[in-house]
């Protein structure tokens, strides 16, 4: 039905644009990771020095590990918050399901900055939470670790990504035909057993999708640490950011970025494979 001319006409512009403005830049970053900086000037000298530095210097390894821990914590917390919420909406909300669903996803698309900033004002020593605790005479001094710590970063990122995790899990739960739940009960399984034996296994693709999303985006996040992380909450993306700023070393920064990119792609790949294995029609 569609002529070759038609198909070429629609495919070519986006292909060219995406090739030029996405593929080429990513490739350029890849290339940069093999170059070096001599006396404050970028030199196109191909070497593996940057990668060696990244994996040998303890400071980089430490930050990378901390980043992974933070990303894992965020993923776990988001799942612990998002899954029960999705389950509640799908199986228990009844008539209010549609409204509640909107309430969950609408803030999802609203500014990261606004939400990160909100936490910043709440968690500080002079902030709202400390004021609240002191008001109730629960504490007499500001609680320090709330802000400018890895805790704060995990908190903020969990807040941002819980709705992201909620979405695919909710979609997966909604796709489970209700007769399966009834059949399970009919065959003698109570609510808990039905959940463990039927609902949970069939929701795994959604769970994996959400978890991957939360982990990957947390891994490469640099804004939350800047807002609430302080010195102890720095993540690997902040290192990259400074290498492209004050600590001028683009090749090293590019090398770290490439690592993040590769980890992301690898995770996406494996997640997709796992999701396929756990998809049952």
């Amino acid at each position, binding site marked *: 039905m569609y002529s070759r001319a038609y198909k070429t006409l629609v495919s070519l512009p986006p292909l060219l644009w995406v090739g030029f403005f996405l593929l080429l830049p990513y490739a350029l970053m890849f290339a940069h990771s093999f170059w070096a900086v001599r006396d404050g000037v970028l030199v196109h000298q191909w070497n593996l020095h940057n990668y060696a530095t990244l994996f040998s210097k303890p400071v980089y390894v430490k930050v990378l590990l901390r980043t992974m821990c933070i990303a894992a914590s965020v993923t776990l917390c988001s799942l612990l918050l998002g899954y029960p919420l999705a389950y509640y909406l799908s199986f228990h909300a009844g008539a209010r399901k549609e409204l509640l669903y909107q309430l969950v996803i609408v803030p999802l698309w609203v500014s990261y900055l606004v939400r990160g900033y909100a936490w910043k004002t709440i968690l500080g020593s002079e902030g709202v939470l400390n004021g609240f605790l002191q008001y109730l005479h629960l504490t007499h001094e500001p609680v320090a670790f709330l802000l400018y710590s890895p805790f704060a970063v995990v908190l903020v990122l969990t807040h941002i990504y819980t709705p992201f995790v909620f979405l695919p899990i909710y979609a997966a739960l909604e796709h489970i035909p209700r007769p399966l739940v*009834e*059949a399970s*009960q*009919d065959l*003698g399984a109570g609510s808990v057993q039905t959940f463990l*034996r039927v609902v949970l296994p069939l929701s795994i693709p959604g769970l994996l999708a959400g978890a991957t999303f939360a982990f990957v985006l947390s891994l490469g996040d640099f804004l939350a640490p800047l807002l609430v992380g302080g010195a102890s909450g720095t993540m690997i993306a902040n290192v990259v950011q400074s290498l492209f700023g004050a600590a001028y070393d683009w090749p090293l920064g590019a090398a770290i970025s490439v690592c993040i990119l590769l980890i992301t792609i690898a995770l996406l790949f494996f997640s997709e494979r796992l999701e396929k294995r756990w998809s049952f029609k």
Partner: protein
Amino acid sequence: MSLAASNPQHGLSATPGALLEVLGVAKRFGDREVLKHISLNIASGEFLTLLGESGSGKTTLLRLVAGFEQPTAGEIWMSGERLDTLPPYKRRVNTVFQHYALFPHLSVRENVAYSLRVKKTSAAEVGGRVDEALRMVKMQELADSRPSKLSGGQQQRVALARALVNRPLLLLLDEPLSALDANLRKQMQSELKALQRELGITFLFVTHDQEEAMALSDRIALLSNGALEQIASPREIYAHPATAYTAQFIGQTNLLRGQIADGMARCGALQWPADGPGGAAVFSLRPEAIRLASDGAAAHVTARFHATLQQQFFSGASELLEVNCGGQLLRVRISAHGPLFGEHDFIFSIADAIRVQE
């Protein structure tokens, strides 16, 4: 409060021998009354069919027995104990769902073993009982397949095995054959009937297909708009329909509306001697009860009428004639006759004109 508790020996069923008792059960969804005070009993070992159109409430009644809905009024008792207050997983009732509801992430074997695993049955016993159930439905070879790889008929057998492995007191079947094509359907009907006979398990079967109901059931409960029209054996319900609806729904019939006065029934151009209370009356007269007068007289008291042939449909062993008797359209079924034309005399046995309620 409980209806059955009016029996001095509280806990005994109101009707001895009844496995399931439905007592004045009603169900309302919002402002829609789906079931209006149904009462019926099912005997142990019986094959009872709930028959009706969509919206008649038959599926709702089934779901009430299964435990997926709660009655708005009334009670359900099984083996002398209250059933409707129990959650589905505590009832000794199992369901074969309309679209089978097989667990897609489990193999056939694991699907069948599900209820046993939930009860933490020992592995040895599970193996034996699952094999036995699969053999009953002839699905042993495909035990390790996934449901998605099976045909509709195969899935249906697995669903059956899964429900039966539990040895329930009552098996509920929610239009299990409606998704199958005609030939497979006939075959499965035969197998189901044989299985029920062999196992002696009580079956509560839901369908909208009256032929299916008549072929399989010990008794049929006909539901219409949430009310029980009639509950009787297939032969009884066919020969003596209680209402006009029943007469029309089960098999074909001619509904004759008229009056009884002075010992005669008059419906349009037809009349015949009839007793019974005078006034308006409706009669059900099956097409096969009417014969051509020229085919010879009958032994019983007959009525006679004259009609013009309008249409003739040949169907192999028989013919269906549509005839016009004084403006009234009647259907007549006779054995294969060759083409007929024009006007004829018809006779029927008076006993075959059954008076029914409107």
